[in-house]
């Protein structure tokens, strides 16, 4: 069968979760250059465009992260200088009929091909539960199974679960949106992990073996003691009134990522699914397989494999006894919290450097403050001087006024004198006149 898609195709892989999505995505993300040289563009900057996919699928966000920008991702796809574009995020599986149609239309209904990867539900279920616990859920496994199988309509816990994992409905929903001829279901074969990569290589016209997957510690499932530690921790975390934003930042994308680098001992207990839930899974898987088989989409791999019974070791009721941890495991997550906090502080700026910078700023502000104070003192002094000068001027003015008054008085006195002088002059003049006319006196 020739799988090669036409030039111009946008290949949209929608998961669902727990179907080797991380393997596929890291194979693309880590080989971007090689992809480019074969004219394939992998959309987004990270391993997967999680927040943009959520925005497109149901408008949801990740607590503590900014809302995804779906239009920007679309623009990037539009602008890509490539023959084919690959878009992969399991979060597209959250979309309802309407959103699925909108996603396809936005990508171009005539050039979009959807890929859905599938694994047996009975294998997905424990893995999905521990993933929810890693994202702050507190429900115990049996309790959660009961909610999902018997009370899914009533509970508010993990509302996305059946949206993701009613695989028949998922296939039909997207077949409706994109056309059944444009949808390929790939049934994963765990004995041949490279098969998925080879199929996608063929669809995109890549040389066989170009996509290489790098093992990722975070992609493993937690063991039972690990997940129980997380669950109890979640209980205490939220009892302390911390927020989902804190959790996402410090725990989910912080300490838990480091914690997953731990290598559990081979005999560390795994999560086991109770027989009743296994039976329900297989029953449901049979229904789903029948429905998918008749849906008219292209199916690669053997659908019957989705209904096989799990290994005996994966089945069993949870222990009556509470789970216990080794001291190594008990102490390990505390260490990882510190490790993550150290990383956080380096990401957000090395603390000592930050402190030094603040100190420097503080010193600068202090210096400014000192300068202002000095100016203030100087101004005050000048003001005082000016006041003093003013006072001196006023005093002088007063003095001058006084002098002026004095001189006026003097002048008036002088004028009196003057007048007196005139009088005197008059007298003198009179005398002179008397001298000049002596006869008058003798005669008189």
């Amino acid at each position, binding site marked *: 069968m020739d799988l090669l898609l036409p030039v111009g195709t946008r290949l949209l892989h929608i998961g669902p979760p727990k179907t080797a999505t991380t393997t596929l995505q890291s194979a693309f993300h880590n080989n971007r250059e090689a992809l480019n040289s074969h004219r394939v563009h992998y959309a987004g900057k990270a391993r997967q465009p999680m927040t943009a996919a959520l925005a497109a699928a149901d408008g949801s966000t990740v607590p503590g992260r900014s809302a995804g920008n779906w239009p920007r991702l679309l623009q990037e796809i539009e602008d890509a200088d490539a023959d084919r574009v690959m878009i992969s995020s399991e979060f597209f599986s959250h979309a309802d009929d309407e959103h699925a149609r909108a996603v396809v239309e936005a990508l171009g209904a005539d050039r979009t091909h959807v890929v859905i990867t599938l694994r047996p539900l009975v294998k997905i279920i424990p893995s999905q539960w521990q993933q929810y616990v890693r994202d702050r859920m507190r429900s115990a496994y049996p309790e959660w199974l009961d909610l999902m199988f018997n009370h899914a309509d009533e509970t508010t816990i993990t509302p996305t679960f059946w949206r993701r994992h009613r695989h028949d409905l998922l296939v039909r929903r997207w077949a409706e949106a994109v056309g059944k001829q444009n949808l390929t279901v790939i049934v994963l074969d765990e004995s041949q992990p490279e098969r998925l990569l080879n199929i996608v290589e063929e669809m995109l016209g890549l040389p066989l073996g170009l996509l290489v997957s790098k093992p990722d510690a975070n992609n493993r499932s937690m063991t039972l003691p690990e997940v129980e530690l997380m669950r109890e921790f979640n209980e205490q975390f939220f009892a*302390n009134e*911390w927020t989902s934003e*804190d959790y996402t930042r*410090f725990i989910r994308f912080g300490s838990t990522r480091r914690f997953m680098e731990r290598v559990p001992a081979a005999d560390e207990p795994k999560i086991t699914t109770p027989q009743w839930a296994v039976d329900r899974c297989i029953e449901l898987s049979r229904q789903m397989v029948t429905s998918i088989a008749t849906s008219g989409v292209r199916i690669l791999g053997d659908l019957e494999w989705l209904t096989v019974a799990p290994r005996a070791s994966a089945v069993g009721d949870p222990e009556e006894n509470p789970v216990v941890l080794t*001291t*190594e*495991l008990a102490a390990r997550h*505390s*260490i990882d919290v510190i490790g993550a906090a150290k990383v956080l502080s380096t990401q957000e700026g090395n603390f000592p450097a930050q402190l030094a910078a603040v100190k420097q700023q503080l010193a600068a502000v202090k210096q400014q403050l000192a300068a202002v*104070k000095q100016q203030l003192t100087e101004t005050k002094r000048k003001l005082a001087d000016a006041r003093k000068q003013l006072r001196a001027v006023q005093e002088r003015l007063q003095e001058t006024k006084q002098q002026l008054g004095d001189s006026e008085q003097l002048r008036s006195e002088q004028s009196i004198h003057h007048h007196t002088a005139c009088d005197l002059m008059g007298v003198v003049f009179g005398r002179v006149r008397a001298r000049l006319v002596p006869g008058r006196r003798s005669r008189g």
Partner: protein
Amino acid sequence: MSADGAGLLLPVGTRLLHIGPQKTGTTAVQGAFHSNRAALAEHGVHYAGKTRQPRPAAAAVVLGTALPGFPADSVDRWPALVEEVRTSSADRVVISAEMFANAGEAAARTVVEAFDANRTRVVITLRPLAKIMPSQWQQFIQSGAHMSYAEFLDAMLDQPRDTSEHTQAFWHRHRHDELVERWAGVVGPDNVTVIAIDDRERRMLLDTFELLLGLPQGLLAYDTKSNSSLSLTETEVFREFNRQFFLDKQWPEEVHAAAARYGMATYLKNEPTLACEEPIATPAWALRRADEIAVEMTTAIRRSGVHVIGALQDLRHLPDDAPDDVAAIDEVPVEVAARAVMGVVWHTTMARTPRSRRPGTMGAKAPAAKSSKPATGPTTDELTSAQLVGVVAGRARRRITRST
């Protein structure tokens, strides 16, 4: 000395210097003094210092340095303490800090002379060595050690005293006969009082202090804080944490002090002990060895001529149900492990959570802030540079506004 308490009252003018040692109920006694200051003052008793205990001041004179985590100028608290005691107008002054028990002879002399040798009464509280051992081990673990209890007991009881820092520190405090002799040598046996604590009498220690100080019976009351010990289960998680921290990661000491001692330990102590947690039980051989030492110590103390309150034979403790070996903890309940993580989260990432959402501010079950450095406002590392500059600018603005 009569046992009914008659004649215990210390003369007016006495400075009662309580030197511990560690793990003899000091935290509880200090809390009783600290939280009843006003009532004490009414009865002519002054409790020196501003906090539960003047530890930085005592460290300054005993160690000659500031305590880790305290500013360098905290050494000035010693002369300040001496001045406070000197100028107190109270009839009797109480100074209590177990750090004083770490003093060598010269430091002890300096301390006593500072408080005036003529009016200082040294009080030493004692509990059975056998009970101090588990308590002291988990304290060492909280400070970063990673020896097992079996290794600890072997080092303390079967190795020379100068084997390690831990053995030296332990015996300097807990060779109680030498401790008594050291202080009696400085202040005179007649000015030393040993209180042999009877653990069965809860108020014994407080009643005794009331008699010594002339306080009405019942005035001293315990506050809520106790320096409780970790269980064996918790200590084993802590010990493994220390191993991963120092051996695997080789992270710095101060990160440990913050995240583990003040974060994890505080959080664990504040949570109720679970039924499945194991206590730290001392094996029979170690109890026997400790009892031999206790006999030597009590004999020497009896001969030393110091005042003794309580019965020295109570310092022997030899239960007959002791295990043969130290219990091995291979498995830890998830609750304890999750509490350890929570304690670290609580401390390590607290800086990045808005204050209003911090544990303790919402009435949630949360560790009461009970580190020795109670925070009264955000510390520098709780604020971003921008916020800090904002604070400074705000202050500068206010200063400028005020001064204009």
